[in-house]
């Protein structure tokens, strides 16, 4: 088997007249944490489901662990852990029962599955809830249980579709910490997200997707370097004046993005640009100096924000 656990060439998925995934290529190496970043409807989840051998492609080639998901779906799925966008736990059953039955779906022995449960409960920080019906768990707990469940079969690749969507900030950080631990253990992660901070935190390498196509590929740092400047200055003059002052500000930085509520100025030194703006007699209502992020990369590539 090659070093690449996942190989995707010219992958296309059409629904009637709609092209959800439009001829994309990428590969994921062993022990790598690979991200698919893009807004809702970019084709990320569709791509994931094809790789996870639960959806059929229209054309192109896909190899997961050296096998074609269309021909050897169950064989591939035996080696995957999947965390879907929407939790699909058995809410009538308890936390422990959910872990148990999921392991059994893989055909694992009762003894083996039972031996894993304590570790998984600890990993998911759900020891106290072991005999609680899933129906009554909070969103963050359900999410952690879904992740723990996906690990019961000791997968070679863990596929996470929007792992923290819908969670509050604290629950997100707990989850990121858990995922980071998996990454350190060397498990191969494939993550879709529309949160740039999530992609920056968790992904070694990622592709930026929009409208079914790949817009860029690289590590978060590389992408920021390639498509953005080191720093960004965000200024607000009030929604009426933003467009008015934009032509003046444009002269003071490398690149400018005028959004409905604020203006982004791309530069190597944001403090200096701010001084120059004030020096030129313009006084923004608010200003913020920050580092460039993947959000800026996405804006540059598509002219749109990730979260709309």
């Amino acid at each position, binding site marked *: 088997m090659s070093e690449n656990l996942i190989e995707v060439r010219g992958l296309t998925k059409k629904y009637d007249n709609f092209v959800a995934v439009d001829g994309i290529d990428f590969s994921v190496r062993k022990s790598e944490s690979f991200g698919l970043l893009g807004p809702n409807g970019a084709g990320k989840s569709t791509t994931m489901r094809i790789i*996870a051998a*639960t*959806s*059929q492609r229209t054309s192109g080639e896909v190899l997961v662990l050296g096998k074609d998901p269309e021909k050897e*779906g*169950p*064989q591939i*799925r*035996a*080696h*995957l852990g*999947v965390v*879907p966008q*929407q939790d*699909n*736990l*058995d*809410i*009538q*059953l308890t936390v422990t*029962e959910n872990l148990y*039955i*999921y392991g*059994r*779906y*893989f*055909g*694992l*022995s009762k003894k*083996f599955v039972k031996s894993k449960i304590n570790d998984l409960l600890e990993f998911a920080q759900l020891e106290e809830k072991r005999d609680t019906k899933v129906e009554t768990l909070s969103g963050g707990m359900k999410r952690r249980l879904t992740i723990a*469940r*996906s690990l019961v*079969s*000791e997968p070679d690749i863990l596929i996470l579709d929007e792992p923290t969507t819908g969670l509050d900030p604290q629950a997100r950080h707990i989850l990121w910490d858990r995922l980071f631990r998996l990454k350190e253990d060397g498990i191969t992660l494939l993550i879709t997200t529309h949160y740039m901070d999530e992609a920056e935190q968790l992904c070694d390498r990622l592709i930026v997707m929009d409208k079914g196509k790949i817009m860029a590929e690289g590590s978060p740092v590389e992408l920021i370097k390639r498509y953005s400047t080191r720093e960004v200055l965000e200024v607000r003059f009030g929604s009426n004046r933003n467009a008015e002052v934009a032509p003046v500000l444009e002269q003071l930085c490398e690149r400018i993005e005028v959004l409905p509520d604020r203006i982004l100025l791309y530069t190597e030194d944001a403090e200096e640009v701010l001084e120059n703006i004030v020096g030129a007699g313009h006084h923004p209502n608010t200003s913020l100096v920050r580092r460039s992020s993947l959000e800026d990369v996405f804006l540059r590539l598509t002219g749109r924000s990730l979260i709309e």
Partner: protein
Amino acid sequence: MSALKEERSIPKFGAFYVLEARMKAMLKFFWVIASIAILNPVLYLVSIGLGVGTLITNNIGPNGIDGVSYLTFIAPALLATSAIQGAMDEVIFPTLDGFKWAKIFYGINSTPQTGSTIAAGVFLTAMVRTVGSVLAYSGILYLFGAMDSPNAYLAVPIAILAGASFGAVMLALASHVNSEDLFFTIVGRFVIGPMFLFSGTFYPLGTLPIGLQFFGWISPLWHATELGRFATYGHHINATMLVVHSLFLLAMLVLGLIFAFKQYTRRLAK
């Protein structure tokens, strides 16, 4: 870790593991299911078996229909009805839950399980309930003296076959359902109700005008009831009809499962 890697392959009888999981979920409702399985027959036997039965006995004599008591006459039909209802509940609700409500099938489908093994597991679970319900029902029939013919026990496997046949078809239909409200209305009012009333359950189908007998011909309940009456007390059926009744039920079973397996697979791949 390495020990597991070697052991990890596709489970041989995938449906067995789905059955195991569905049993866990079903047994959470054990007392509800057991109450239905016991209360239903008791209510029917008291109101129709004894109430209507007494009326019939008083008017046309103790061996009025087919030369047997009214209870003996309706016992195979009631048994098949209970099998059909148990099987139906246990395929419809888990199927809707699996595809629509909690979407658990999509989680199961992320393991080596397939649409077919999931469908088979749901069906087998429904069969466990059906067998349990039929056994409970036949015990109560026995207590009411409705199982006194020497071959009465033969009504049990025939009722189970009826449950399996109807359950298989409902499994296939439920897997297509997107709007459950409409589905429940149609099934409840236009399938179950008429089937119970027009399948020769309470009187021989031949009593009805020929135009209405049609409902019986397409009803698994009528076919099972005829077989049950034949087996339990020697109700007269010619050899051709014996084959027709059996083939009808077997065809429903086989076609229902084939379509269910296909649709489960197709819907999960969407």
